[in-house]
C-alpha cells in the first residue's frame, strides 16, 4: 500500500507555484498547487482516521482501505464548520465538549474549510484568477493545519475522527 505522504504533496505544490521561467506562473500550475496543498491535508486526515479506527499495523488490509475511502470531501468540510465553533450546535451538543474542540482543532478546522473552498474554486471555477500569493498561503495553511491537528489533545483528536466517520443524525 502506498499512502500519499502529505509533505510530498506540499512539496509538489511548492514546485508548481514557483515560476519556472520569466513571467508569471501559469494559472494551471497555480490551480494545481492549491489543489495539492488541500489534498495533502485531506490524505493526512484520512490516514489519521484509518490508523485510529483500524490500526497502523493493518495498513495493508482491505478493512483499512474501506475506512480510508469512506470519507468524502463534503463530510470533512461539514465537520470542520461544526468543529470551528466556540460552542457546539444543538445537533452536536451531546457528543462535543461544551466549550468546543479547543484551539488546535478549531484552527485546523478553519484552515481546512478555507482550503476546501479554495481547492473547489481552483479545480472547478473558471472565474477566479489565482496568483502566487494564493498558492503560498494555501501551502502554509495546509502545513500549519496539519501541525495543529497533530498537537491537539489526543482525546479530542479521537472524537473528531469518530465524528468524521460517524456524524450524528
Amino acid at each position: 500500500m502506498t499512502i500519499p505522504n502529505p509533505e510530498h504533496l506540499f512539496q509538489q505544490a511548492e514546485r508548481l507555484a514557483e515560476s519556472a521561467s520569466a513571467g508569471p506562473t501559469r494559472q494551471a500550475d497555480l490551480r494545481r498547487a492549491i489543489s495539492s496543498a488541500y489534498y495533502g491535508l485531506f490524505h493526512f486526515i484520512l490516514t489519521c482516521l484509518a490508523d485510529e479506527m483500524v490500526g497502523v499495523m493493518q495498513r495493508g488490509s482491505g478493512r483499512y482501505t474501506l475506512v480510508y475511502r469512506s470519507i468524502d470531501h463534503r463530510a470533512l468540510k461539514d465537520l470542520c464548520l461544526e468543529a470551528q465553533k466556540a460552542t457546539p450546535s444543538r445537533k452536536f451538543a451531546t457528543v462535543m465538549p461544551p466549550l468546543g474542540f479547543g484551539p488546535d482543532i478549531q484552527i485546523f478546522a478553519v484552515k481546512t474549510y478555507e482550503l476546501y473552498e479554495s481547492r473547489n474554486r481552483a479545480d472547478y471555477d473558471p472565474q477566479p484568477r489565482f496568483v502566487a500569493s494564493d498558492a503560498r498561503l494555501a501551502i502554509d495553511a495546509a502545513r500549519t493545519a496539519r501541525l495543529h491537528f497533530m498537537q491537539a489533545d489526543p482525546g479530542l483528536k479521537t472524537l473528531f475522527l469518530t465524528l468524521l466517520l460517524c456524524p450524528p443524525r
Partner: protein
Amino acid sequence: MQCIPIDFLSGTGYIRLMLEMSEVSEVVAKVVSASPAGPALSRVLSAPTLDSAGEAALDVKIVLRNDTLDDVVVRALSDNIFWIFRGLEASGEERFPILSYATEEELAQDDDPES
C-alpha cells in the same frame, strides 16, 4: 449592518446578520494590522459570494504591498485565518469568508486567460 429575516414563514423570527462589505473589510484589516503581517497590508477587498454548496459567503481578498510576502508575513497571514473567522463572528456576521491574497503587483497583472 443589515438584518434579513430568513425564516419569516415559520414564525421563528430567526434573523441572519450581515455586515456591509466595508465593515467586513474593516474587521479583516483590523485583524491583519494587529499581527506581524500588519506592515505588509495594503488594503482589503470584500464582496458577497456563494460557497461551494451555494450558501452565502464572503469573498475577501487581502492585498499586500509589493515585495512584502516573506516567510514571516506568510505565516502571520496563515495564522490570521482563524482570527478573521472569530472577528467576523464577534461582529455578528454569519457568512464565512473565503480568503484570497495578492500583492498590488499581482493584482495589476493581466495574464493569458487560458493558462
